[in-house]
């Protein structure tokens, strides 16, 4: 495993381009585009204010930089550095900005969710979509980029509009049977739209592309409901994480629950491997002086017997309590599902989707911040806001200290398309972590992986 040098960064804004060739990062009001392989700066753009959001267009030709405080969006072209585009939302304000899948339109949401403005880079035309709903996940594009579903609120009723992205024509508009819609998400095949209600009620509705209600599912009543939803890449399963600490998996044929994954505080099954992160006892060699401020290296130990996991007692009288399954992710090959139960914040649960049972539990020393699957193989990268990055694969798992002087806390991470590298983001720096490919061209200064099976 190799690490690049540290680069400056602000606002955790660093993204690989969709084609995997470039790496864009922001430092205050500057946008830096680097080559992924050489890390040399290819372009440097200066925006009008501190950048708060960036996004690559799907064809990797443009980058938009949003400055919400000013209500401004600036778009830069990678092919034509002199080309520029500035969109000013004026007094309407700006709270969100995103590309349409064709990479030629920008959807800006104004303040108070008054409307969504669709700006075109090809023509002068501007479209408006009124009544967008202010919710957690109100806009969803299909994976093929043909349609966009938009959650709306009209006359105190939730509804969903489906637009054709090519000409922004309304295709379908239907009311949804929800109290207070919280999110929408397309299945990867683009034919089924999952719509779920606010956390006060457990309700998920499944709509076909043509607006027919396929099914609706309610697990229980009178308690906090859905917290997270994820489609499997094959569109075969819909995993629903809820506040009761369970993941329910629906199938795509009958839309009924196949299985429930519980997240108990103690792993009792002796067949389940539990990897526990533990601090290595620091060896004091005769020639090596112990660095007093150096973070202790950690390793994974395999715990046996009933393993109690560290649990958090949620504060009952506060909103958004730290309970329930808040993070869900299917591996790209559909074989595994990684989850995090928010009241067991140190643990990542990996489930075997084929056998529909728990596979492995990883318990970290500190709360898990984020995890992401390698796009190419079943390999999970985890960060906990410390100076380490953790990798799990069915073979074993490993904890790697990021070799950086000073305090480098990995707050977020993002895989490269090829699965060869990961960007590790800290508060004001980022670095790339290169993973050794299986051919084994081991670099000279690399830190070796210590796999514990």
């Amino acid at each position, binding site marked *: 495993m190799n690490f690049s040098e540290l680069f400056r960064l602000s606002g955790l804004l660093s993204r690989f381009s969709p084609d995997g060739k470039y790496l864009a990062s922001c430092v205050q009001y500057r946008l830096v585009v680097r080559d992924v392989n050489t890390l040399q700066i290819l372009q440097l753009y200066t925006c009008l204010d501190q950048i708060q959001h960036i996004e690559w267009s799907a064809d990797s030709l443009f980058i938009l930089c949003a400055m919400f405080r000013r209500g401004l969006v600036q778009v830069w072209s990678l092919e034509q550095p002199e080309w520029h585009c*500035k*969109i000013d939302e*004026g007094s*309407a304000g700006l709270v969100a900005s995103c590309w349409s899948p064709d990479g030629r339109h920008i959807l800006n949401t104004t303040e*108070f969710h008054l*409307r969504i403005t669709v700006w075109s*880079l090809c*023509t002068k035309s501007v479209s408006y979509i009124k009544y967008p709903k202010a919710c957690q996940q109100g806009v969803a594009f299909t994976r093929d980029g043909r349609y966009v579903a938009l959650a709306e609120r009209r006359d105190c009723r939730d509804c969903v509009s489906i637009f054709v992205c090519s*000409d922004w024509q309304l295709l379908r508009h239907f009311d949804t049977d929800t*109290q207070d819609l919280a999110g929408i998400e397309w299945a990867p095949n683009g034919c089924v739209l999952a719509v779920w209600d606010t956390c006060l009620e457990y309700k998920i509705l499944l709509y076909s592309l043509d607006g027919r209600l396929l099914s609706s599912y309610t697990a229980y009543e009178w308690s906090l409901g859905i917290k997270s939803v994820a489609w499997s890449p094959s569109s075969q399963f819909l995993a629903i994480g809820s506040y009761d600490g369970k993941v329910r998996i629906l199938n795509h044929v009958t839309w009924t629950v196949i299985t429930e994954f519980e997240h108990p505080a103690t792993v009792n099954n002796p067949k389940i491997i539990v990897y526990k992160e533990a601090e290595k006892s620091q060896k004091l060699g005769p020639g090596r002086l112990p660095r007093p401020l150096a973070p202790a290296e950690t390793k994974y130990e395999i715990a046996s017997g009933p393993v109690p996991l560290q649990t958090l007692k949620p504060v009952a009288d506060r909103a958004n309590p730290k309970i329930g399954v808040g993070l869900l992710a299917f591996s790209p090959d559909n074989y595994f599902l990684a989850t995090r139960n928010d009241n067991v914040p140190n643990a990542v649960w990996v489930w075997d989707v084929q056998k529909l049972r728990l596979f492995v539990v990883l318990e970290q020393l500190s709360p898990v911040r984020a995890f992401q699957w390698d796009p190419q193989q079943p390999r999970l990268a985890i960060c906990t806001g410390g100076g380490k990055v953790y990798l799990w694969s069915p073979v074993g798992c490993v904890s790697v200290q990021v070799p950086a002087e000073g305090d480098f806390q990995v707050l977020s991470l993002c895989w490269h398309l090829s699965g060869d590298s990961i960007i590790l983001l800290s508060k004001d720096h980022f670095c790339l972590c290169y993973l050794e490919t299986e051919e084994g061209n081991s670099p000279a200064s690399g830190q070796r992986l210590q796999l514990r099976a």
Partner: protein
Amino acid sequence: MGDWMTVTDPGLSAESKNISQYTSETKMSPSSLYSQQVLCSSIPLSKNVHSFFSAFCTEENIEQSISYLDQELTTFGFPSLYEESKGKEARRELNIVAVLNCMNELLVLQRKNLLAQENVETQNLKLGSDMDHLQNCYAKLKEQLETSRREMIGLQERDRQLQCKNRNLLQLLKNEKDEVQKLQNIIASRATQYNHDMKRKEREYNKLKERLHQLVMNKKDKKIAMDVLNYVGRADGKRGSWRTGKTEARNEDEMYKVLLNDYEYRQKQILLENAELKKVLQQMKKEMISLLSPKKQKPREKADDGTGTVISDVEDDAGELSRESMWDLSCETVREQLTNSIRKQWRILKNHVEKLDNQVSKVHLEGFNDEDVISRQDHEQETEKLELEIQQCKEMIKTQQQLLQQQLATACDDDTTSLLRDCYLLEEKERLKEEWSLFKEQKKNFERERRSFTEAAIRLGLERKAFEEERASWLKQQFLNMTAFDHQNSENMKLFSAFSGNSDQDNLTIHSRPRPKKPHSASNWSPVCTSKLTKSLPASPSTSDFCQTRSCVSEHSSSSVLNINPEETKPNQVGRECINQTWSVASRPTSQEGCYSGCSLTYTNSHVEKDDLP
């Protein structure tokens, strides 16, 4: 009669006499009463009885007494005391025999009475104790009754309390349920209230939004604008099209196409899965038929099963199978046929398996013993066979070992190749090799010791020769001086004779003499050092310096020397003899140390010695 009257009753009338007769037992005269009391009372008082009798009968009233007694006795049914009078006038004579008989009878009666009394008394006692026991029992039972009654009352009380509690709890439960209901109602009402409020707020919010929209958007805000250098082409290279009904229709079409594609894809998958399943089903059916049909022949011949009809179906189905397999369609009739036939066959199979199970269990129950006997024989045969095999294997191993050893003995250089060839016995070989080297070393040691002994012997011979010469010269001198010192000469002669005898005893006496000369050197040796020396001695028997110290310390180290090693003891003893022999010339410098320079080295192991020693 009148006489009799007088005799019987002197002073009383006939009537009163009768009464007295009747009451005689109870009242009688005071004296008789007393006598009865006496009878009843204890025996020791009987001494006084005589005096009472005497009191009863005096000289004067003998006659009356007798008649009284007679009367009394007759009333009790005894024979009269008087003789049977022949004449009425004659006075009746006292019949002594009768009196004695009466007395005897009375005595017998008395004794009997006493016995009876005794019995009665014991019985009384027994009954009394029984009574006591029963009373005790009674008391105890009463107590028990009391306690159980108390217990019962306690239990009843507890039961009552529990029931009370239960009632309370039920009440509480009811209350709680009511509470829950109430709370649910409250929640529901709150929810409706909340929803209502929300809606109201949202409406207000929407109104505000609308207003804001109007204010912000419709004011022709100059700021809301896009400033772009030049418009870029569309990603697909096409130009934008106008929105018309046509495009709408096209969009619809496309949407349905997408949906259709998805459904088609899914249908294809399902078809594939179905085909797979069908294949499995067909295969299963085929296998079932092949499994069932040959076995079913026999029962069919017997034709006593109820499955006969089903079997014919099976055969029919078997015939149909080829046709069915050709249809690869999901036709309903085919499906039905298939499932039906499978079901039928499954039933047959189940029956068959059950029957088999029954048979097996029957066989187990009936013929268990026979089978057991047979199996035992089989077992014995089998074990014999196995034992034979084991024997063979052992022999094989032995021969292999021999071969291996031979190989090792003949070709040490080929060890590596043989090891490679036969890695199974690698460890064994290694061990053998080690032993081999050890033996070699031991052999070397022995040879070295032998050499040193021969050298020592040669030296000894030389020394003896020199000594002889010296003695000869000395004798010569003595002989020459004999005349001069006559007296001394005689002494020396004695000494000489002792020397010439050359006995061990004399040698020892000489040895013991120089011993006190070297106590310091001996005491300076630390025990560890001495042990080292003693260990190294077998290899260096003739170095004079060591010999000296050796002789000094030999006494406290000899035991340890002896039990170092059985192989070592022999050379050690030899060495000691050697020392003893060489001691007499120890003063002479014998410089063969060069050869044994290595002897001062400390040997940790007596077996392993350095090869570079000669």
